[in-house]
């Protein structure tokens, strides 16, 4: 079956940023996302995930390369200075490229 290259952008951030980040996703043109609660440790200390207000979430979004670039650009400029956050992209291959 033919697969097509896409980018998977993964964002780990404080749960409070959920609304603004998912808003950004639809702004840059992502057609969906997947999200779940995680625990974390990083430069800003442990985030133990037992109370939702201070928890971390991980957001995964599959987008075409151009959208990924734009997304990372905005994250780096507007979000990194403000929110406890890590973001990275990787190469994936999907079946229905028109879906993303």
């Amino acid at each position, binding site marked *: 079956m033919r697969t097509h290259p896409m980018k998977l952008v993964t964002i780990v951030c404080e749960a409070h*940023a959920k609304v*603004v980040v998912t808003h*950004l996703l639809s702004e840059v043109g992502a057609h969906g996302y997947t999200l779940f*609660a995680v625990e974390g440790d990083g430069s800003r200390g442990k985030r133990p*995930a*037992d109370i939702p*207000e201070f928890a971390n979430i991980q957001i995964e979004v599959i987008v075409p390369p151009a959208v990924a670039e734009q997304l990372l650009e*905005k994250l780096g400029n507007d979000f990194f200075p403000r929110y406890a956050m890590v973001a990275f992209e990787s190469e994936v291959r999907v079946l229905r490229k028109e879906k993303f």
Partner: protein
Amino acid sequence: MDFLEAIRANLLSPAVLFFVLGLIAALTKSDLKFPEPLYVGLTIYLLVAIGFKGGVAIAEAGIAKVWLPALAAMALGALIPLWTYPLLRFGGKLSAVDAAAIAAHYGSVSAVTFIAATNYLKAINQPFESYATAFLAVMESPAILVGVVLGKLATKTAGEKSGASIKTAMHEAIFGRSIFLLVGTLVVGALSGEVGMKKVEPFFVTPFQGVLALFLLEMGIVAGRRLEDLKKVGAFLLAFGVVVPLINGALGVCLGKLTGLGLGGATLMGVLSASASYIAAPAAIRTSLPDANPTLYLTSSLAITFPFNITLGIPIYLEIARRLYS
């Protein structure tokens, strides 16, 4: 019961002891923690129980008795940021956006502190207007909105890009989980009345104090983890987190008396205005004023003011009320 006795009674109540146990768990790095859904479940239970009971009380007392002090409570909540903001900005030399954020937290309220106070009054047999929950419900949002406006005015240029607008803050402040639950169950309680209460009493009333104690164990853990951050906030905020509640508490008690509440109700109004939000306000502020430093407002409301109110503050506000009413 004299003042010291009142404090002792509060400190040795299961609720406060469980809170202290939670603090110890955090400080000794025990791996004890509540899973998030349990925390959320307990929160929902406490808010629904207190809201429903308050609604039944409103139905009994009649809206005529409630509207004036409720309106006053709202106004008080909205005004507190207006005097704390300049204090933080110029007294504490904080940035405008941090000052606005902290001011919003102290104008808003902490439901758990309120619940602990009603618990305490019941334990020492001090009667109070149980429709006081209505004041809790209306005091949560106004200060958040005022704080966000203050912060936006101060950061007009920078904040526009990614921070959500005042509109988002307003939606969050009105339909956010905790406020929605409180207001909603107040109305449900008012519609159900005593008949409905009888059905759900064994779940929402009888075990309430025990559930609160268990919840405060987790709150102790959450607050205890923040204690490390005390060094980061500096001496000014440390003092702010204790002195401002005392002033706001006294203001609240007076306003309660002025608007016709009894001794118990005025104490609760004092507790509300003394308390600082650490759930609704952080959620709204983090999205609306993302440039404010959360360590500052969370540490002061959660690691300073909340423990202070739970342990010493509540008996103090009662004592203030006693002097005023005697």
